[in-house]
């Protein structure tokens, strides 16, 4: 009895809070998304999600608390949206003023009514009429950027588009690079002040990577940073001969931004050809590095290379997360990155100095990260024709699926993979537009080499693991955390999971029919209810607590 009346009281309290929130939100938001809104990021009223990582820190952590460890098991589906096309979501949807803005596979995108899941408009760009697209790993897209009344979208044929938010009509269309030479773009644009920052994919096709900033108003190029230095530039001598011309170093995962330092941070892709050492002697800067660029000019402030002369396709295209930490009694502005190479890094984001570098999976290629910031390489690092067994595999200890960071708990959450592979390498001639890897990796199998995955909670001040939740096979899901102590994740078998972010205990699960791949849910408030929006396969599903009274805003 007592329990029931407490529950009732709880509902009344939640209902009242929802009412207050709804009244507070009665003001119609301004028609244009301002740079100030982007700076504010995720607000406590839950009214919006306006960029890839939720805010410029890329923490992917929501302040919302209506859904809790105690009630998460009562989440109910509100609607399901189907793309009605082949391919699958790898996107982070945006939400503003009760409308979702979602990019999909095959150069498609939608505006969707967040109340009902009904389509408002649809954008589809025809794939190129001749030649082949070379996107190595699926005809996907990772999400919109937004500013003013415009959405920004990268395309598989390496364009950047500005679309009208109300109609999906093209406002401007800029060519990033020639797709027939192996360039593509799948990255979610990062909007900083009046600029739209993007990068290009194609690290398996002998491209020369770059990060571009375009004027949001006109689509004109504001600056370009080549991820491989040209002749005469510092770092050019880290590429033997002319190997720099086709050295890859692609950029396909959204960076983060520190407004005080006015720096953007981007992880850079692998050097090419991926596996063959002799084809590109040297450290191969800035492949597999984190670069800090002046947001106004694109000038390099500092770089840190995680894997000098990488031979295992270990792009550093993981999501860099910014936070303020106390390490050994010292307050630090840091950038954190769980790397594909198996090490977790915490760097001082003012200068790029290594603060923490610790393995978070089994690693066999480096003993440790030395005091000079370079990995201490172990024998067997260089693959050859006979093959060499290395951990992690080419897909890596983690990859592009976004991690999250809880600033109250000071914990970093990442879906990690425990997989080893035999790597082979051979010399390969470069042919423009053709795959250029110089080898391959084969996942090691057998009873003694069980491949599995785990959601791991890591203390970024030490690199130590606080807890883990294991999966029977490696997951490629991103993570969303909330201030109420929830971590949302997914497994490779298609289960959507709610986990207690303090303990790692599983609280609730639902079979979505397809894995959350390379993306995480987002969360927002709508009509007084907190919603969790889950992209999985060809569907978006919105979840909320039916027990919370719906308070429609009728403005």
């Amino acid at each position, binding site marked *: 009895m007592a329990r029931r009346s407490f529950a009732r009281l709880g509902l009344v309290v939640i209902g009242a809070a929802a009412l207050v929130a709804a009244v507070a939100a009665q003001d119609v938001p301004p028609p244009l998304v301002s740079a100030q809104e982007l700076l504010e990021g995720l607000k406590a009223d839950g009214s919006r999600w306006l960029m890839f990582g939720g805010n410029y820190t890329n923490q992917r952590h929501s302040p919302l608390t209506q859904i809790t460890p105690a009630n998460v098991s009562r989440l109910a589906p509100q609607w399901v949206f189907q793309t009605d*096309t*082949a*391919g*699958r979501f790898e996107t982070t949807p945006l939400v503003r003023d009760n409308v979702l803005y979602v990019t999909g*596979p*095959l150069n498609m995108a939608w505006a969707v009514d967040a109340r009902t899941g009904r389509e408002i408009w649809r954008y589809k760009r*025809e*794939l*190129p*009429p*001749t*030649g*082949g*697209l*070379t996107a190595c*790993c*699926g*005809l*996907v897209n990772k999400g919109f950027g937004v500013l003013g009344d415009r959405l920004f979208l990268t395309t598989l044929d390496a364009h950047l588009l500005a679309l009208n938010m109300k109609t999906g009509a093209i406002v401007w269309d800029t060519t990033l690079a020639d797709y027939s030479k192996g360039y593509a773009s799948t990255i979610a644009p990062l909007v900083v002040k009046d600029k739209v920052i993007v990068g290009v994919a194609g690290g398996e096709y002998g491209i020369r990577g770059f990060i571009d900033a375009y004027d949001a108003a006109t689509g004109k190029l504001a600056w370009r940073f080549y991820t491989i230095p040209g002749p005469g530039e510092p770092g050019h001598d880290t590429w033997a001969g002319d190997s720099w011309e086709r050295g890859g170093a692609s950029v396909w995962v959204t960076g983060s931004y520190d407004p005080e330092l006015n720096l953007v941070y981007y992880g850079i892709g692998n050097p090419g050809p991926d596996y063959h050492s002799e084809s590109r002697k040297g450290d191969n800067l800035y492949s597999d590095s984190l670069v800090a660029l002046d947001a106004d000019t694109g000038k390099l402030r500092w770089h840190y290379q995680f894997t000098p002369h990488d031979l295992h396709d270990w792009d550093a295209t993981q999501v860099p997360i910014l936070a303020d930490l106390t390490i050994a009694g010292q307050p630090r502005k840091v950038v954190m990155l769980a790397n594909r190479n198996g090490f977790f890094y915490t760097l001082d984001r003012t200068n790029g100095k290594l603060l923490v570098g610790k393995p978070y999976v089994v690693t066999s290629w480096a003993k440790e990260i030395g005091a000079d910031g370079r990995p201490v390489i172990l024998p067997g690092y260089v693959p050859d*024709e006979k*093959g060499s067994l290395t951990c992690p595999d080419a*897909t890596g200890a983690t990859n592009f699926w976004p991690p999250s960071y809880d600033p109250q708990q000071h914990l970093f959450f990442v879906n990690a993979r425990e997989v080893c592979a*035999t790597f*082979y*390498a*051979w*010399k*390969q001639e470069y*042919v423009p*537009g*053709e*795959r250029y890897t110089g*080898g*391959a*990796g*084969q*996942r090691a199998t057998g*009873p003694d080499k069980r491949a599995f995955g785990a959601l791991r909670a890591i203390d970024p001040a030490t690199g130590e693991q606080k807890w883990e939740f294991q*999966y*029977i*096979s*490696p997951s*490629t899901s991103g993570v969303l955390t909330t201030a109420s102590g929830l971590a949302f994740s997914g*497994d*490779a*078998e*298609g*289960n959507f999971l709610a986990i207690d972010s303090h303990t790692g205990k599983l609280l609730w*699960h639902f*079979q979505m029919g397809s894995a959350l*791949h390379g993306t995480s849910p987002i969360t927002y408030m709508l009509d007084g209810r907190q919603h969790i929006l889950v992209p999985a396969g060809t569907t978006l599903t919105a979840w909320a607590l039916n027990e919370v009274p719906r308070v429609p805003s009728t403005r």
Partner: protein
Amino acid sequence: MKWLHLVLAVLVLGAADVVAQDVFLKIPADPPTKNPLEGNAEAITAGMGTYRVRCADCHGMDARGIRGPDITQVWAKGRTDAALFRTIRTGVPNTEMPAHPAPRTTDTDIWRILAYLKTMAPATAEGPSSGNASAGAGLFATNCVACHRVGTSGGHLGPDLTRIGVARARAALARQIRGNMPDVRAGYQSVTLAAPDGKEIRGVKKNEDQFSVQVMDTRERIQGYLRDDMKSVTDENKSMMPVFGPDKLTDAQLDDLLAYLESLQGNDAAPSAANR
């Protein structure tokens, strides 16, 4: 390699969409009739890497077949380089063998794979079996048919053997029967579930996730179970197939059985055999 499959699936789906729009359709020039890279050491090495990454999941590291057929016997059985090239390029309709279109797979990639495969292929076919196939058919009816299907009769717990004479070399079949194969094909792993009422459910594991397991039990009932509903779920990490040692099957009987299995070359009346 699930990862690779997912990636391939996306590419294949993407490609299907593209073909429907009649764009990107690249018609390759007729390939040469003889592998231009046969015996080329560099090509063989490159082909080995590509083979291991893109073919070995189904055909095995030794090319002796897992889900896909043994492909060490293809030349001995009279297939030509050009025909094999086309099979890799276009796939095999109604089977799991996918097409490998350009530009992801170049002509050179395919010739390299074939150059490597050739190094694993015996120059001549295995000699005729010394066993008696009709005696083998009797042994099959006694020992095997409860689980294995040939044509329209037999059980469903084990793989369909209607085309096994094409898909597997005799030596591999002998190893399997004698229990000397370390790997278990997915979908045929033995699993035992203990229900709270003391009942035991034994069968082959068809699928699983962290919350459930899907089983065909020894009575061929297909059913999913929640792990939480069971006292235990025990993976035996071995095939459900019993080992037929010399105590159960003499060497001479094994030869007879092998002769019968080799005679199973497929049957148009049994469409289920196509997928092998």
